[in-house]
């Protein structure tokens, strides 16, 4: 179990799909690889095999499903790339290398919209709820695009570093580590804002669900 | 009887030949043959039956293609003369079919026909 877990943690989801970490993977290719691997690994395609093989198939398929879900969704993919670059926003236990707080103007804007959301719900205004949802979606999209822009730089920077230090040699990298760190911080800041909008959208959906049931 | 057999055979098509060869090899009985018979019953009157047989029985007619043999009893031969045996694979099913020029109506279950 432990060995399996360790390998799951170290194997990059991108590696599983035989592609380089990227902000913009080719989705049809991703799907084709997912289907191909599923047909090979899925327990239902190994029904005649022995128990050990089937358990292994189950484990592999579970990991494949997790990887595909992560890489397919632009939001989950961005958070995952940030993690590869060294910042895990999901891990509440590790300290972030910078102050993780969106700008005050952003916070007050979200709070304002939240108030409107609650008001619309208590007054059962389905149209307003939908409008607010659309607004939040657009805002999320914008933050995500910004985050992706910075993530692209981070990945480029990371690739250059590894190119210049093929065997982990002593050569000092010419791209300044400071630039990389700055891009990473920017990407993280925008993804934190994405988190706020995600929570907002979840609430908007719940409110609508309650209006209809 | 022998003359009739050369006149009208039960033809083993390429698809059926390949499949039978494979099945015989899997079964490790290369000298066995496929016995095809026509019986009463089935939803439109008469039906086909297919089973492995080690050797022809009694007056069975034998049709051969490169070592793959089909045995047919004389009564059934009356129905089967001129038929061809094909092997079909589709998305949902795989199996043999007899294309029988004598059959007027094939039934839904594929096993029977009327004359």
């Amino acid at each position, binding site marked *: 179990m432990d060995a399996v877990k360790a390998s799951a943690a170290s194997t990059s989801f991108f590696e599983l799909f035989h592609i380089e970490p990227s902000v913009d993977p080719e989705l049809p290719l991703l799907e084709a690889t997912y289907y191909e691997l599923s047909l090979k690994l899925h327990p239902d395609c190994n029904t005649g095999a022995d128990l050990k093989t089937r358990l292994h198939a189950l484990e592999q398929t579970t990991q494949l499903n997790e990887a595909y*879900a992560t890489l397919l969704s632009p939001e989950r993919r961005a958070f995952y790339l940030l993690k590869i670059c060294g910042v895990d926003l999901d891990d509440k*236990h590790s300290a972030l290398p910078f102050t993780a707080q969106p700008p005050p103007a952003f916070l007050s804007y979200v709070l304002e919209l939240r108030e409107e959301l609650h008001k619309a719900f208590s007054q059962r205004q389905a149209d307003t709820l939908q409008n607010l949802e659309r607004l939040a979606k657009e805002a999320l999209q914008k933050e995500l695009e910004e985050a992706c822009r910075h993530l692209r730089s981070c990945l480029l920077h990371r690739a250059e570093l590894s190119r210049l230090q093929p065997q982990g040699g002593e050569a000092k990298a010419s791209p300044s580590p400071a630039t990389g760190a700055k891009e990473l911080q920017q990407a993280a800041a925008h993804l934190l804002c994405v988190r706020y909008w995600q929570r907002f959208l979840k609430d908007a959906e719940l409110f609508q669900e309650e209006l209809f*049931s | 009887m022998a003359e009739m057999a050369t006149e009208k055979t039960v033809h083993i098509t390429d698809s059926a030949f390949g499949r039978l060869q494979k099945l015989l090899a899997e079964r490790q009985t290369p000298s066995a043959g496929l016995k095809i018979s026509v019986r009463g019953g089935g939803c439109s009157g008469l039906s086909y039956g297919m089973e492995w047989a080690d050797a022809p029985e009694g007056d069975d007619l034998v049709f051969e293609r490169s070592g793959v043999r089909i045995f047919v009893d004389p009564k059934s031969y009356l129905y089967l003369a001129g038929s061809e045996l094909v092997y079909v694979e589709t998305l949902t099913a795989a199996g*043999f079919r007899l294309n029988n020029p004598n059959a007027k109506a094939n039934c839904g279950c594929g096993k029977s026909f009327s004359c």
Partner: protein
Amino acid sequence: MSGLLQIRDPQKPLPPAPAIGVDLGTTHSLVAVVTQGKPSCLVVDEDNSQVLPSVVHYSANGSVVVGKYAKQLAFQFPEDTLASVKRFMGKSRSEFEAKRLASYRLAPGEGPLAFQVSGGPAVTPLEVSAEILRALKQRAHAALSSKITQAVISVPAYFDNAQRQATQDAGRLAGLEVLRLINEPTAAALAYGLQSKKQGCFAVFDLGGGTFDISILKLTEGIFEVKATAGDSALGGDDFDLSIACALLEKWNIENPTPLQRQALLSAARQLKEQLSQETSVDICFEEHSATVVRDDLKQWIEPFFKRINFACKRALKDAGLAEGEIQEVVLVGGSTRMPEVQHWVEKIFGKPGLWEVDPEKVVALGAAIQAHLLCGTHDAEVLLLDVIPLSLGLETMGGMTEKLLPRNSTIPARATQTFTTFKDGQSGMEIHVVQGERESAKDCRSLAKFHLKGIPPMAAGLARVEVRFAVDANGLLSVEAQELGTGIQQEVAIQPSHGLSEETIERMIKASIVHAQEDIFSRLLIEQQIEARRVLAELHKQMKAHADLLSAEEATSLWEASKQLEALLETTQEAAKLRQAVLALDNQAKGFVERIMNHSIQSVLQGHSMTEF
């Protein structure tokens, strides 16, 4: 396409019993099986019907009647005849909503949700479902003449963990190895997709007797992938009937209807609904009351359900990341989609009319049979199903909020891990509450399990790290593990089935049913012989009519007499062996006649050649 021939090997025993596919429906159940590569439904009830009403009658002498006869007994014994129990699968006593028109008698006391019936102790919905499954299994056995042990059982896609667990346990209780619980819309897509050979994005709109599911699937060659599913596990044709019945009660000012009145009125409401699918206006009489109901009345009575259905469809599309226009076809499944108003809803939601290319009432059973065939592992699978969990799975965190570990529409098998920490200094235990649902507050979600992880070594708040691991198998059933990472203390959490029957109780019930199996075998043998006798009689009579010229008068008389005797025996005897002997005797007596028919047919082929030439 006609079936294909398979080669029988006389040296090998008969092929293993096929695994069946069961559509365990709220109002009707069906069983199908793949033979020679083709799925078909089996005859499971009187009048050669392939549909078994999901109705179970418990009579005073302790015997159990399932199907059409049970349905007829409902009028006489409304309280001892249970219908639509699927609605109560996996529900606890507190979740039981006594509907105004339901005539169930809830068993008194604390235990699991159970109904009081005459002739024995109270029965749980799980046991009632097991009776239906047992009947299907026995009747499939009779139809196929081979022992049935394995099954794929369909469940609404929107069933939660408890409802799935209850269904699986009902299968075990009926003596079936449940190979898989398959989601109903997915089963429908499997049958539909393989038959139509179409590819692309499809919506399956499944409105049955008691449940509603909408699934969005992508069909490609080799893989059928469920992109998203949504629904309502308590919305179906039964609710329409109830709405109609309530509206009529109100119209006629009937207060406090008796159980008998309820039963009659519900049945009348159903009939009214079905008639309005054909006609635009229907007259209804009930006792001294009467009314004329038009389609617009019906539309108004069921209108409230449209909102819920519309919302579920929109959410499924959103989760699948697709717009209405990207859906190639909407496949209709379930008896309630026969209603013109429901078809109108579909068009309103998706902008195109729904289609039935496979019988909407059979398609789920056919799909389940295909999956059973694929899973029994004797050949390479032609198509792989990738399904999802319908509801998010999570944990209750501080302040009664839920933290989702696996979001809804995650592809199964799936897993998720989350670490939690202590919030008090020296805290030695941790309460872990597993919930399922979308709501923010844990108390609004379904509680699946609660357990206490003990033995965390004393340390400052926030330092202990407890890892909780969720794993969902291919049936959509969840298992949970928790581990304190510092000490390695680990605990596996049993997700207690909330149908209230413990594992021991179920084991005991299974053992008890094996004791009864002996009786079952006798009744099965009898059923088989009865079926065989009827088949032989029908065939003989047919041939005697068709080939009267090949029979001498004497022969005809003696054959008629012999067949009359067999018919009489069929009505009276309970002994399978006796019946078998009689069938063989008749067969023997008819031998000469049958030979002549065969020769006659051969002669007509030869056009004048006689058999003696050989």
